[in-house]
């Protein structure tokens, strides 16, 4: 029997996010022609349609717009761990991102900082943390499970 994992299926465009997360960085694609920051990952610029996008480090600062706790999940790994905290964050660099949410974040509206980690499926995922200080995974036991306590 295979071990349950969070969804690991990704498009090839998303591989850059995982590669950066493996190196401890949060990177998003930026259009080489017009500098528009892209998310979700893609292979053509939403602003100018250019097809050359470059993964570049982002500082992750943003506004926490809304949060939820998912009680009913379609994925076996998450089903075992509900309720699961999810957030919607408007990044200062432009895009709105859906993230995992650290339990120490204040309720919206609030400043948060988004970091990228590898989850136990081996894929890069975004997590919103309190705006100040380093990302303290260890203080949220569910997130610690998500990243596999590496």
């Amino acid at each position: 029997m295979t071990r349950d994992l969070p969804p690991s299926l990704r498009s090839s465009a998303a591989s850059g996010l995982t590669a950066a997360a493996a190196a401890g960085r949060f990177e998003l694609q930026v259009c080489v022609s017009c500098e528009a920051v892209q998310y979700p990952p893609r292979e053509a610029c939403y602003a100018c349609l250019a097809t050359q996008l470059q993964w570049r480090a982002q500082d992750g600062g943003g506004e926490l717009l809304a949060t939820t706790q998912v009680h009913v999940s379609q994925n076996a790994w998450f089903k075992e761990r509900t309720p699961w905290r999810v957030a919607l964050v408007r990044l200062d660099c432009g895009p709105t991102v859906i993230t995992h949410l650290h339990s120490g974040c204040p309720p919206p509206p609030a400043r948060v900082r988004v970091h990228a980690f590898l989850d136990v499926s081996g894929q890069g995922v975004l997590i919103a943390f309190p705006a100040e200080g380093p990302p303290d995974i260890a203080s949220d036991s569910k997130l610690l499970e998500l990243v596999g306590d590496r």
Partner: protein
Amino acid sequence: MSASGGSRAYPDVVVTAPVTVPYERYSSSSAHVFIARALTGLLASAGLKKSDVDGLCLGSFTLAPDSAVAVTQYLGLSTRWLDFLPIGGMSGIVALRRALRAVQSGDAQVVACVGADTNQPDSFRKSLESFSTFARDAVLPYGSGGPNANFALLTAYYMRNYGARAEDFGKLCVAQRANALSYPHALFKSPLTLEEYLSARPIADPLRLFDCVMPCAGAEGFLVMSRDRAQRLGLPYVPVLATSERYNAYADDPIQMRGGWEMDRDRLYDDAGVGPQDVDLVQTYDDYPVMSMIQLEDLGFCAKGEGPEFVRGNSFTADGSLPLNTSGGQLSVGQAGCAAGFLGLVEAIRQLTGRNLARPVPEAHFALVAGFGMITYDRGLCAGAAVLSREGG
């Protein structure tokens, strides 16, 4: 109603023969079966033969690996016009628009518009996984709550910014359930109280069970043809005064608190010659009650952010101050995939022709029907609407 008493946009074409294939919670049948049943219903109600249908417009999510063209061979149709619209809650409005122009231009004479989907036990989970590239990369890995999680975030934001309370959403759900009790095809057949709504189990905060639709199998359909043909066939029919269609509106908004209706409503009502104050019944795309509230705002029934007050000041049953989703909406009838995008249109046609299955809205002359949907990432990309009239206004 326009000065000439008819439709300026679509003067000589009409919509007729509203058909519903009864919904089933789960079905082992393929989507093709539901399409076949819908077509059978359309032909029977219009007194037509299969060969009389020369246009087919099909909305479906569960036909794969087939699409509309495969259905022509599967069901032995030889049409000269074909469209495939796997766009969920928008498919009915767009089917209507496409079919009206096809008949108006002479590209087809009788267009069958059908939204049909099956719901096999594993269909919902599979559809989540294959729904969109963005959902796969940037939504599902975050708790896999599906669209419920998306709309939980939108609902939470709406409540915080505009002062909506759970009771306001509950009022819509309770009114729609009251409407559904008179509609024979609704999957939910018992009354819903506000207390039951508020105490239902949580799905994704702040959404509870009755904020979320029940996926099911079923089909809806209608025919588009010339007014002359409908009259020759002796069919009750409905003129369409105006329609609108918009995708990916307000993409720079940080979160979706409005849809493309706001962008298009002035032209819609101008084309129709009627405004929200003239509308006798509204069919919103009610995949979640917050979206009904947003549609009422964006379609001009109240200003942005006034949805909660508007809901508190109105009643939404068939005999209420603003009859809304008068067959129960998908919240009480069920969400049969793309058929949900046809549900409001089919109900509006019935109300305006007096061929009701649900309780009639008294003096129903004008109906507004909205389409919405396709949450490929964080917001619904489609926003459409149609204004329909009783013949003669």
